[in-house]
């Protein structure tokens, strides 16, 4: 009964819905057409006309974005202008006190640090979206983009991913301007160049290329510029987008640029003649060119005693190798070459495996995958739950699986030692590469034994030898060998050691550590107390 009575009404609602969908579609079409037209179109110089165009682009009738704000202002001597801003991106205090104040005093150009003349429509809209206040004026220039940005962003805090005992405790944040200032405060050189790029087709993103003029080899800068300009992605949310499009070898598993959240690392890299890329919205900087060794170096190396720093560097190389081959070698030796083990060890390893129902390879993969699962689960869990995860993980893997005889103790030891060695690598990117290659080597070990592992290592080494980062050989200064570059590669020599370091970018590297700096006690002085 009721359904019959309401049927016409329902039909009417459906028809209206369809109509509004159509209208929506038409509006979207109209808008994209407008966007296309507005590209490279100049502002007319008539504030009312321009304002209407911009308002249409920001959604127009019915769809105007809610934080859109527009006021008509009187410009002394120039007639009426329009002030447009997005309320979500603008600090109202600045707007009130400075911009309106400046307009009333006819000091618009000189009111603030940033008053950028704007000519193109699309640029005006982009700047509006970035949090500028647009002042549309009659005549030339047709508009000024005024800085009144005010929005919440994270404060500069401790490095979370690259912690260190000593040294700076500041890390990049998501705000580009803050990040540039963090770097500049550490470089303090007028030759520091901060070159702006606007990348991203759909969502234009501010990108900064940093280098020190006169120090960085010009062809490197040109090459990087070329690569940045050739990027045509719809959006750029992180430096990773840049790294993937600017890599020398797009298929390599190894990182060819260094990601760092530490401004001091970026400053040091700039002083070594490298380039850095900062992206709005990304709390990481991209440093390149880099070599393989850059990923085994930590900021702490330069802030702690060179003895321990050198030791740690050698240790890290060993650990990288260990993380790469340990499970593979274990499988190969257990399954193919038990004669390589010291006798008693072979017998005891056999003893631990008596109850294990799987071949060693399956066992190793089970453990590795279980560990990867735990790790992946851990990264996605809120910190409050991660303790319960580790408890479950330790119980499941460490206790239940072993005591039920599904997995042998030595395999647990191998997998855990490998995991810890992997965690000891300072670079997350290098650690993940090693982590993946480990599985490839395990497959090779399972199929071919030690020869398989060796061939796998040879292939990796061959690949590394051929790899380049912004044209610089990846294994430099070891291959090709430049002996004086080694002072900051395998070891970390004291800061007073004279000579040019590093020689990676020779012959363009021009900063030398002067001779005669090695400290020593004052000559002839045996005691501070002078004899009476």
């Amino acid at each position: 009964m009721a359904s019959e009575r309401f049927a016409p009404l329902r039909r009417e609602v459906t028809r209206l819905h369809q109509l509004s969908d159509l209208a929506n579609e038409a509006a979207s079409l109209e808008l994209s057409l407008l966007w296309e037209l507005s590209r490279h179109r100049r502002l007319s110089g008539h504030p009312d006309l321009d304002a209407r165009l911009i308002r249409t682009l920001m959604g127009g009738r019915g769809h105007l974005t809610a934080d859109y704000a527009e006021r008509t202002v009187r410009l002394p001597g120039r007639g009426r202008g329009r002030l447009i801003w997005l309320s979500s991106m603008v600090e109202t205090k600045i707007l009130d006190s400075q911009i309106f104040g400046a307009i009333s005093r006819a000091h618009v150009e000189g009111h603030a640090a940033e008053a950028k003349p704007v000519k193109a429509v699309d640029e005006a809209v982009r700047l509006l979206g970035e949090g500028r206040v647009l002042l549309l004026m009659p005549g030339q220039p047709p508009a000024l983009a005024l800085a009144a940005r005010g929005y919440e962003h994270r404060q500069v805090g401790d490095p979370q991913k690259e912690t260190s005992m000593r040294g700076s405790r500041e890390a990049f944040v998501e705000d580009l301007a803050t990040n540039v200032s963090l770097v500049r405060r550490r470089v303090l050189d007028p030759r520091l160049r901060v070159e702006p790029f606007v990348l991203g087709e759909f969502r234009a993103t501010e990108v900064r290329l940093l280098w020190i003029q006169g120090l960085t080899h010009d062809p490197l800068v040109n090459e990087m510029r070329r690569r940045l300009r050739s990027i045509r992605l719809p959006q750029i949310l992180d430096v990773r987008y840049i790294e993937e499009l600017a890599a020398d070898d797009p298929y390599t598993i190894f990182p060819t640029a260094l990601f760092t959240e530490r401004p001091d690392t970026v400053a040091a890299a700039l002083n070594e003649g490298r380039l850095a890329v900062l992206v709005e919205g990304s709390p990481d900087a991209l440093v390149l060119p880099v070599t393989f060794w850059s990923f085994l170096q930590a900021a702490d190396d330069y802030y702690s005693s060179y003895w321990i720093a050198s030791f740690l560097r050698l240790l890290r190389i060993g650990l990288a190798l260990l993380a790469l081959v340990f499970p593979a070698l274990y499988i190969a030796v257990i399954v193919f070459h038990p004669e390589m083990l010291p006798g008693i060890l072979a017998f005891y390893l056999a003893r631990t495996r008596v109850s294990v129902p799987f071949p060693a390879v399956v066992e190793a993969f089970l453990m590795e995958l279980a560990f990867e699962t735990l790790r992946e689960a851990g990264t996605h869990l809120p910190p409050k739950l991660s303790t319960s995860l580790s408890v479950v993980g330790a119980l499941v893997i460490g206790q239940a699986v072993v005591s039920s005889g599904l997995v042998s103790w030595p395999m647990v030891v191998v997998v855990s030692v490998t995991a810890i060695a992997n965690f000891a690598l300072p670079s997350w990117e290098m650690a993940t590469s090693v982590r993946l290659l480990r599985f490839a080597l395990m497959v090779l070990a399972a199929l071919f034994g030690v020869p398989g592992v060796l061939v796998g290592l040879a292939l990796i080494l061959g690949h590394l030898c051929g790899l380049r980062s912004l044209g610089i050989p990846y294994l430099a200064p070891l291959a090709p060998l430049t002996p004086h570059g080694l002072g900051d590669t395998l070891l970390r020599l004291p800061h007073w050691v004279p000579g040019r370091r590093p020689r990676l970018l020779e012959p363009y590297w021009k900063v030398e550590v002067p001779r005669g700096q090695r400290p020593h006690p004052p000559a002839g002085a045996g005691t501070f107390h002078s004899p009476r």
Partner: protein
Amino acid sequence: MGGEPEPGKRWRGRLGPLLLALAVPFLAGGCWDRVEIIDRGFIAAAAVDAVPGGYRLTVQLVLPQSLPSPGGGGAGGGGAGGGPSVAVLSATGATLAEAASRMDEQVASRLFWGQTRLLIVGQALARRGIGEVVDFLVRNRESRLRTDLLVARGEAAPLMAVAPPYRDIPADNIYQELRKNLAPRLRAFEAAIRLREAGRGFLMPALAVTRPGPSPASPSTGAERRVTLPANPALDGAGVFVGGKLVGWLDGRLTRGALWLEGLGSGGTITLPYRGRPLSVLVERAQVRRRVLLAGERPSVRVDIEVDDTIQEVHEGELDPGRPELLRQLGESLAREIRGRALAALAATRRMGADVYDFGRLFAGRQPAYWRRVYTRWPQIFRSLPVEIRVRAVVRSPGRLVESLQLPR
């Protein structure tokens, strides 16, 4: 940099070398060599005897599941507690390989020679020659060439069944004894090298079972548990081989003497009379320089032995390190003792015509022309080869005590 090559082109250029590289492990060894470690039957030690119509192979096969488990926890009920963790298997065959493959049929696991540390040859077989044994061992791809060869005084098989409780793997016991460096060790690869040369002499450690009786009960309380010391295969001198055949034996003392001539005397204790009482010294370091001389057609050898030692035990009498002439006297009598032992060993091996000291190799290196003329007659020449032995012994330290505790008043 530069123009980006087509993706297809990139891969075509790299695929060739990649496949080539992967072919290497395929050829070097592949899945077909894969044997899980629990499916391997580790042979810890093997004994070979001659039987009519072939050989008898007796081995100690490791039983991993009966090894004691570390920490007590873990799966499988832990260790059986005490008892050796090996099974003794035996098989015969016309060749060693046949015996080995028959033995393989007896057990579920695949016999594996890669961890075999000892191979004991029975006396009868040793007299016939050890060529076949070494051939089998060295030809086998699995075996490590570092397996120690020993010769049994008597049959070898019973030695496999003796299990002193000191180690989980009985053979390990003998191996540790060998490692203490007081025996003329002979590894499989060394034996193979020596066998290639006709008439070459060498020593091989000899093994015999010692059966000490029960320990004397403590006289104070008769109720104490009497401990029966287990039977133990122990090193007992060395067998002397010429051309791969056992030609005679050296007892422990003569073996040590022979080792002096090869510079392997350090680590041992020597006891000598000192003022009518025994005094022991520990040889810390022994250096040997051996020179061959050829006057016309008359070869001779000079052996210089330098010994540093420490006093280990002084019974009674005066020992005053403040009087260097006493230490010098001690050194001189030590040198006499060492020289006497070396000469006795030399005399014994001379009688057998066995140049176990490789003096022949010295001539081959220093006087190749002479060696080419005489090497076929070398055993005869060795019987009358003049060997000059000079020993210089220096007492470096009186030990922790300086003077004798019981100085005569």
